[in-house]
């Protein structure tokens, strides 16, 4: 009964993945015939090759491979900076409250509800004024800003749950704000950092809008190529290539999920549970 329910529910969750994988292994004639749930009669890897190395974006026909390293280059600094800032925020909010800190936090939480796109113009103006428009630094900054609300919430909850005695003892020993952060808090915070990394990698890797506005064609992230492959309005839709491209783009976050699943739950347990 228990397992039966779980299996049925699993079907619902696995169905789209199954369809994507199966479709990406079929040739176009087979797709046109038919049933999306049937396994491929003739397995072909060609859609994968095409999606990775041959699909055209405008006049460049080198597929997703073009954007992969660009995405990595955007991802790494963005993840590091956003997590560094948010963890310090959370730490300050949990352990070093000052007048108004809760107000700023409330504003941040409300900020989590603002659709990104409506902030596009103000952001463009801010970045223009500080001279970061069109630079990688600008993009990193934007990811840091929009990652801040939820991450700060998680870090704040996590640090608040660390036993107070540790903190007090360190204070008595004369450790200051940064001393406690680096020597006591950080070493204890692996699980919540894992959660933060997972959330940020997913969000930043899947981001299309900011990636395309704050970069140039040479540094477009992978999602731009994915968009171009999937959203071409005219011509025949090559569903198999679309699906392969989709899976390839989703691979990085997917792998991270599969690898770190257990730590993720532990981290969430610490960051989300104790309000």
């Amino acid at each position, binding site marked *: 009964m228990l397992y039966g329910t779980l299996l049925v529910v699993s079907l619902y969750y696995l169905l789209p993945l199954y369809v994507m994988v199966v479709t990406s292994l079929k040739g176009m004639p087979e797709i046109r015939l038919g049933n999306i749930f049937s396994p491929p009669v003739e397995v072909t890897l060609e859609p994968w090759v095409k999606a990775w190395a041959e699909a055209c974006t*405008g*006049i460049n026909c080198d597929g997703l491979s073009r954007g992969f390293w660009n995405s990595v280059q955007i991802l790494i600094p963005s993840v590091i900076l956003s997590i560094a800032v948010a963890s310090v925020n959370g730490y300050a909010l949990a352990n070093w409250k000052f007048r108004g800190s809760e107000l700023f936090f409330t504003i941040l939480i409300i900020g989590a509800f603002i659709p990104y796109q409506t902030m596009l113009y103000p952001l*463009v103006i801010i970045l223009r004024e500080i001279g970061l428009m069109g630079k990688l630094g600008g993009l990193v900054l934007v990811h840091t800003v929009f990652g801040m609300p939820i991450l700060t919430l998680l870090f704040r909850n996590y640090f608040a749950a660390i036993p107070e005695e540790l903190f007090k003892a360190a204070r008595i020993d004369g450790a200051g704000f940064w001393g406690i952060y680096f020597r006591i808090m950080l070493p204890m915070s692996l699980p919540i950092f894992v959660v933060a990394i997972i959330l940020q990698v997913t969000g930043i890797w899947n981001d299309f809008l900011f990636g*395309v506005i704050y970069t140039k064609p040479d540094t477009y992230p992978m999602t731009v190529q994915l968009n171009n492959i999937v959203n*071409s309005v*005219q011509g025949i839709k090559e569903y198999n290539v679309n699906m392969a491209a989709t899976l390839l783009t989703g691979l990085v976050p997917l792998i991270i999920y599969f690898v770190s699943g257990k730590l993720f739950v532990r981290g969430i347990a610490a960051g989300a549970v104790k309000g």
Partner: protein
Amino acid sequence: MKAIRKTLIATSTLCAATSVAAADLEVTHWWTSGGEAAAVSELAKAFDDTEHNWVDGAIAGSGGTARPIIISRILGGDPMGATQLNHGRQAEELIEAGLLTDLTELAEQEGWRDIVNPPSLLDACTYEGRIYCAPVNIHSAQWLWLSHSAYEQAGLDVPANWAEFVTAAPKLEEAGIVPLAMGQQGWQQNLAFGTLQIAIAGVDAWRKVLVDKDAEVAAGPEYAKVFQAAADARELARSSNVQDWNLATNMVITGKAGGQIMGDWAQGEFQIAGQVAGTDYTCLPGLGVNEILDTGGDAFYFPVIEDDDIKAAQLELASLIVSPKVQVAFNLKKGSLPVRGDIDLSTANDCMQKGLQILAKGNVLPSGDMNLSADTQTQIEDLMAEFWTSDMSAADAQERYASIVASAD
């Protein structure tokens, strides 16, 4: 903002191409499908043959996805070297803000006024007497595409105009064929409506409504007929449940639908499917009633950039776009019509030839992009999207349409 604008204006005065150093020019566009990309690469090739270098900035998903990106980049002071935009009223404010390069000098030098046909194309690029864009092609929307195999299956002759099409519809339905294929998206439904407008209300009424924004005509008896026709067409398209326009075209190609109202870009789909105009499908410009086409299309704009090499490259590209060689190569690949009447397109297919003839006769109208602001167009599209998928009565739709026209700018 103001300070920046000032400096931009101060420096936007055309610097003559004094330097010939090679420059990388980033070009943003949303031509990403097979035929489109082939057309762009013709342009890119021609540009790379000069001393400059084309950096491709393709963003798929038509203007809806690309436009926020383009505008943000220009507004943020970090613009691309050149960008596609539908010519028309979209760029007015960017021009006012001094963010786009004035091409007037180049245009006069090369005599664009004399070669660009119809002249309305260049008018759409003109703002207060100055020219700001280079038109690259003409697309027209008023075509009815008919499937020969669908009519054969139903034992009917292929209709020659809209009235015959409507009369033949019940027989098609009996044979299990959807009379009218229609993608369920506002712009497609609006395109069909616009085409019915010209065919049924006639050019005079159309001009009064779309050019003069006369709400009384829009609420009047000529337009009542248009809305009735649209309501009839809606019934014919009832069992068409696709979203994308090319999937709707595919229904016509495979004989699952009798016809589709769609722009001339649909013939690219027929070509790819290996169909021949006249034997496998028929195209009726102006629904076979009023053989008049609108002349929308694409154009390139050149944001102001503080760099003499890039400026030179921008002018070079503008000049290339209008040149006969690029016009032929580009438009044959894209399936669109060239912006100049003085070139040879004898290799074009039947439907393109029909279009060329209409163009040569001067039976043209300015496109919606030129007449209406994007805001008004969106409102009409929303209305059409609602109308075509609900049971809204023709009278109600007309009333709402008239009120949009009344407040149009």
